[in-house]
């Protein structure tokens, strides 16, 4: 029951991404190209998603707990550090090169286009690379203390 509900939520997300244009790198890159072939459509994606989620969360957080779990598992960290800002900057550079972000690319796998699979394969390699670097760094700091 729970997994079916989650699957259907994924479908809603996938349809949303598909019709929004976030799955289309040409459209995403044009959004960022204000002085060139500008396409402001993505403002409407971000705006629509943000307002809906803001109102939706307000309603949901009025509950004691989610339907299928004992409590909410939302990120609680409030630390703004180099890792957060540096990582986000690096993500921005990659997004500006490729035009796909993870949320745009995952549903786009369903179009069967090989370019999406190439991007997601590289994305997964990048995630492993970063986790590997993080584990080495964690090992070093553990040795130091």
């Amino acid at each position: 029951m729970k997994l079916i509900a989650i699957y259907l939520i994924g479908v809603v997300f996938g349809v949303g991404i598909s019709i929004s244009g976030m799955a289309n790198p040409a459209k995403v890159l044009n959004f960022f190209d204000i002085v060139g072939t500008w396409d402001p459509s993505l403002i409407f994606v971000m705006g629509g998603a943000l307002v809906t989620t803001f109102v939706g969360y307000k309603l949901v957080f009025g509950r004691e707990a989610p339907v299928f779990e004992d409590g909410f598992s939302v990120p609680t960290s409030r630390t703004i550090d180099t890792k957060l800002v540096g990582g986000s900057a690096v993500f921005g550079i990659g997004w500006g090169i490729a035009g796909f972000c993870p949320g745009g690319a995952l549903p786009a796998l369903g179009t069967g286009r090989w370019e999406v699979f190439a991007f997601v394969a590289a994305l997964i390699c990048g995630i492993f690379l970063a986790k590997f670097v993080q584990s080495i760094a964690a090992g070093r700091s553990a040795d130091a203390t």
Partner: protein
Amino acid sequence: MFETAFTPWASLAGGVLIGVSATLLMLFVGRVMGATGVLAGLVQPSSGQDFAWRAALLAGMVTGPAIVWLVSGEMPAVNVPISTIALVVGGLIVGVGVTFGSGCTSGHGVCGMARLSPRSIVATLTFMAFTFVTVFMIRHVLGA
């Protein structure tokens, strides 16, 4: 350069659906709808249960384009105006960035911003700024 049509209504409707799905995920399982977290949890799950809900969510996401195709008769457009090398290099960089930055457009840009999380606001402003600069550099300085 690749021109794309301005689609305010489709984009707004898509954005609202993204928001609805984020809200429903919070309502049912109390989790943030972050593509980075979904993918990272799938390739390196901490438990079987952890894997199962993410796999179900990803399976749903991947079904999205087929639903659009059934309703409209057309697959969503995926136009890649860059070389395969740029696509792969960009993918690698995105993977590194979202892992260190703990999130991407969906996690920080939508869910975190909607919770008014200071971390997500800083992250979103940072990656948006860097994406703008990167696109400007590639298209108008390097002229690629």
